[in-house]
């Protein structure tokens, strides 16, 4: 399945990337995707390391590690929000 990933704010700056498309195995969860991103090493391993604070949205709704991903979906990773 193909997904689109967006990165925002300080996370985007750390990773040097605003968006990308990935092909994943059907049924991949958010947790499994994060594992894959960590394997890139460097800034990716640091940004998504255990204990790092970031949030995930799937199809523009806040999601969790166990949220499964579907074909054509939009996933976003971002720091804790600071609006208002």
């Amino acid at each position: 399945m193909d997904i689109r990933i967006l990165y925002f704010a300080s996370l985007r700056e750390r990773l040097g990337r605003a968006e990308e498309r990935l092909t994943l195995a059907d049924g991949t969860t958010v947790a499994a995707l994060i594992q894959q991103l960590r394997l890139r090493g460097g800034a990716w391993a640091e940004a998504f390391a255990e204990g790092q604070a970031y949030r995930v949205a799937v199809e523009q709704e806040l999601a969790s590690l166990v949220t499964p991903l579907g074909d054509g979906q939009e996933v976003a990773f971002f720091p804790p929000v600071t609006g208002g």
Partner: protein
Amino acid sequence: MRVAVQMEPFDIAVEHARLTQNRTDIGAVASFVGLCRSDNDARAVSAMTLEHYPGMTEKALEQIVREAQARWQVLDCTIIHRVGRLLPGDGIVLVLVASAHRRDAFAACEFIMDYLKTRAPFWKKEATNDGERWVEARESDDEAAARWLSQR
């Protein structure tokens, strides 16, 4: 409800008139305005840039309003949040809540701000003399939002 994410400034008088025109069932309008300050954590801030997640921002704000409507009597509600580059003194966010009575209007307004602060995808970057830096989320905001889990 009226939810807007925009670069342009908002006018509270215009929005209040819009919210209340032709209605006589509204007995209370509670409002909140968030402003950009020139100091944060002992640093002088010369400007602030607000980034957001287009698409999710509006959805998240609408969801927050619906939650407020489920908990309190909310006859109508307006949220306007600015994005882009702001200067100290500029308005960042406006929340207006209309109810028949003040208790629900005040509570819903505070709830909406506490949830916006922790769930709406905006991120602030401050420009200071030492360069630019991203504002960190505050624990006190999470605590404020959590408070509503056990309150009416």
